[in-house]
């Protein structure tokens, strides 16, 4: 599916019918591949993508494999980009030890906390703090709750927390002070995947309660 064209270009052709979903993957791939070392241009076409590289800095054969692999891995993440991204969350329990505290602080039931948290549409403002960690705007103001007085030393990746007026998902294991209300199995950061970060600024995020 990836073929070489002359000395400095390789071309990825999406197989099958012309489709917008394939084109979405092409867009995501063009954005990513444009930053690969040695790639001078990443140009999207109609369900195809051409990379033009500098033969001094990149090896064609390596690039072909990299592009092929990135294409195969791009489907899930990229096809839904721009559409709201749903994050399945198991609220409460072991993965969300602070749910009760948040409910008490907000003066509502745990169930209502879950409903309100899962009802909102969040916008990714930017990524930072951790690899793949998204700063989300849109938390229901009644769910705002102070950070823990004593941060936890080790919060598992996938933990969904609230800290002040922010909510978000710990993308990698780290210390942290947010109140944890649930856990998702979705990988927010995976360097073996393209793109490595699941979320992109501008994405719309929804949390979906699962049990």
């Amino acid at each position, binding site marked *: 599916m990836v073929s070489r*064209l*002359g*000395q*400095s*270009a390789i071309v990825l052709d999406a197989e099958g019918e012309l489709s917008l979903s394939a084109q979405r993957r092409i867009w995501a791939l063009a954005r990513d591949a*444009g930053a690969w070392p040695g790639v001078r*241009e990443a*140009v999207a076409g109609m*369900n195809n993508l051409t990379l033009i590289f500098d033969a001094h800095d990149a090896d064609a054969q390596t690039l072909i494999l990299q592009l092929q692999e990135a294409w195969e891995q791009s489907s899930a993440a990229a096809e839904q980009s721009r559409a709201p991204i749903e994050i399945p969350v198991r609220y409460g329990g072991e993965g969300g030890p602070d749910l009760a505290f948040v409910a008490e602080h907000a003066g509502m039931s745990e169930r209502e906390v879950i409903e309100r948290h899962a009802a909102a549409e969040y916008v990714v403002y930017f990524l930072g703090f951790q690899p793949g960690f998204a700063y989300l705007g849109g938390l229901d103001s009644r769910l705002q709750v102070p950070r823990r007085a004593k941060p936890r030393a080790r919060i598992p990746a996938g933990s969904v927390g609230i800290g002040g007026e922010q909510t978000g998902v710990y993308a990698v294991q780290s210390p942290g002070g947010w109140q944890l209300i649930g856990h998702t199995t979705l990988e927010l950061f995976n360097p073996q995947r393209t793109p490595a970060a699941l979320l992109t600024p501008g994405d719309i995020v929804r949390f979906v309660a699962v049990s």
Partner: protein
Amino acid sequence: MSANEIVVIRPGPRALVVDRGRFGYMGIGVSWCGAADSLALDVANRILGNDAAAAALEIAFGGASIRFTQRTRFALAGADCPASLNGESISTWAAYEASPGATLELGMPPRAVRTILAVGGGIDVPTVMNSRTTDLAARIGGLNGRVLEAGDRVPIAATGVAQDARALLVEPPRWWTRDAQETEIGVIPGGELTSFSEEAQERLWRTRWRVSPQSNRMASVLEGEALDTRGAPELRSHAVVPGIVQVPPSGLPLVLLCDAQTTGGYPKIGVVAEADLWKLAQAQPGAHVRFAAMTLDEAASALRAIEAYLAAIAAGAVQA
């Protein structure tokens, strides 16, 4: 104190400001442009000790007259037009120093098309989207995005004249000194080549193609017996780059050059070896070219030879 500039008395048939090209914007439809014969540009800049990114003038079919307004080191490379500085005959593939008020006259080149005139420090027009090169489609770069006109004053860098400025003559690439009846162009087979009929493929390699007068900086258009294109598939639009050999429905191949559009959809039969592309940009209308299949290894080695040649010039080792 006069500004640092050169004055275009006559631009000839077509002259414009070029550099190595405008890269990184293909994604929004902006072509690379840059010098059609980038090797001549590289040589001229290296002779002067300029940065490889320095801009120069590309003068097609000679006929130009340029006046210098201050002491200026300059170099000529590419099409070997008869040239004179203040009436005294000078050579291409060489550097000179012009005194204030001196006039450079370029006649019509007997063979080849484009002459590079580089000046010490480079042509100093504003950078637009990371390049000084003229893009005639986008109307950006160079002098207001257009070809040069009589009376134009072209800004040049104020770096002045090097201490050791002197005439410096280099050996041009071999193509310039051969008296060949036709130019052999290496092509790495690819694209949709194998979907053409065997007869068409054979004809592609066998034909002595004639360069059409319709050729320009966008493409070298070839004439000869048309190829049968019936086997070639319909393609979805995709990126194209200089060097790609397309076969449009006419069956007459064309080779994309520096000003090519960024996307296209014609079937391709391969890509010209990067070491040979400038030869097409230099082939005069009516000249003959023949395609020769080349492997990637051969093409890479031809490119290395050019790099070694350029390195040798920079080191002063190819002085003629």
